[in-house]
């Protein structure tokens, strides 16, 4: 779409010097913020991954004016979004609509993560059972070290040295 961007830029420039035809079509009392509130939740139908409120092409400018027009006609947010979907396809939405094939986008990741969690949990249990309760070396955060204030610092250091040794 680069070709279009550059070309539309000339239009933007031209429009600097010409009377804006769109503004003449009404919707004058709708503020930019109200338009952007909806535009920011829509994506430009011809560019790639550009939200409509920050898209610089002439086409996007027209779409924002369209939102302004619809708002001035009393349309709700949802109606305007639906209008955009009907006209320009589902890709204008920031997320796939929650229906049909698109449901997969919402259900597959949690399912995989859940499976991963189950596998991890089972592995934990297996490891624990394998080793039983044979030994129990008390380490760093053992009750003694935190409760007995007599010499906890040295214990921390001892632990630290122990760790360094293990690495070699």
């Amino acid at each position, binding site marked *: 779409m680069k070709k279009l961007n550059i070309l*539309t830029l000339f239009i933007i420039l031209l429009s600097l010097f010409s009377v804006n035809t769109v503004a003449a079509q009404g919707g004058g009392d709708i503020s930019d913020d109200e338009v952007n509130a909806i535009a920011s939740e829509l994506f430009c*139908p011809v560019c790639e991954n550009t939200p409509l409120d920050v898209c610089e092409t002439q*086409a996007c400018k027209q779409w924002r*004016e*369209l939102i302004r*027009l619809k708002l001035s006609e009393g349309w709700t947010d949802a109606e305007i979004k639906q209008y955009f979907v*009907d006209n320009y*396809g*589902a890709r204008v939405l920031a997320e796939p609509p929650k229906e049909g094939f698109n449901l997969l986008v919402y259900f597959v990741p949690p399912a995989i993560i859940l499976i991963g969690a189950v596998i991890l949990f089972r592995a934990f249990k297996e490891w624990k059972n394998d080793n039983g309760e044979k030994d129990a070396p008390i380490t760093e955060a053992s009750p003694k070290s935190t409760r007995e204030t007599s010499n906890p610092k040295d214990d921390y250091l001892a632990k630290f040295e122990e760790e360094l040794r293990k690495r070699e």
Partner: protein
Amino acid sequence: MTEENTPENSPQKRGMPLWVQITVWSVLVALLVVVFMGLQRAQEGNVQTGEETGKFDFTMPLFEGYYHEGAQEISLTDLRGKIVVLNFWASWCVTCKDEAVELEEAWRYYQPDGEVVFIGIDYVDTEPEARVYLKRYDITYPNGPDMGTKISQAFRIQGVPETYFLDRDGVVKHVQLGPFQSTAQIMSIIDALLAE
């Protein structure tokens, strides 16, 4: 990473459980297939000369004030037996303006015989702007919005303007990417199709 060391022959080794292996391989293969298809699609480009358009039939609503044989919609399959000129355009497209007059001129030349149908397909456009555009260039052939970009996706257009010429059987016979240079250019393509 060399061929001789790929141990394809050892699936039954004790190690990894078979079901894990099968899952991993099928996920891997599925992923590669999807990516391959995506790659193919990305490199495919627009519909080429010689392709059948029967498989992507569409019925397009027309803008207010535009009619095809009295109806406010037009269906591609109903046009079998006629030469069809499908022109994709948009009001925000600069180069579309370079060919608007030429297309309309050609349309007015062929319209009386009823052998050729021009259809303007308005690609992702806003209706008010589209109507201003149609009025400015006094375009009279049927024009309508490409609802949900279904038609342009079927033709896999790469941009606007693009024009597809379909013969009487609905087969794409000529594709014009970008604007036409002259009315004569449009007419020569249509004349060739009419002569078939």
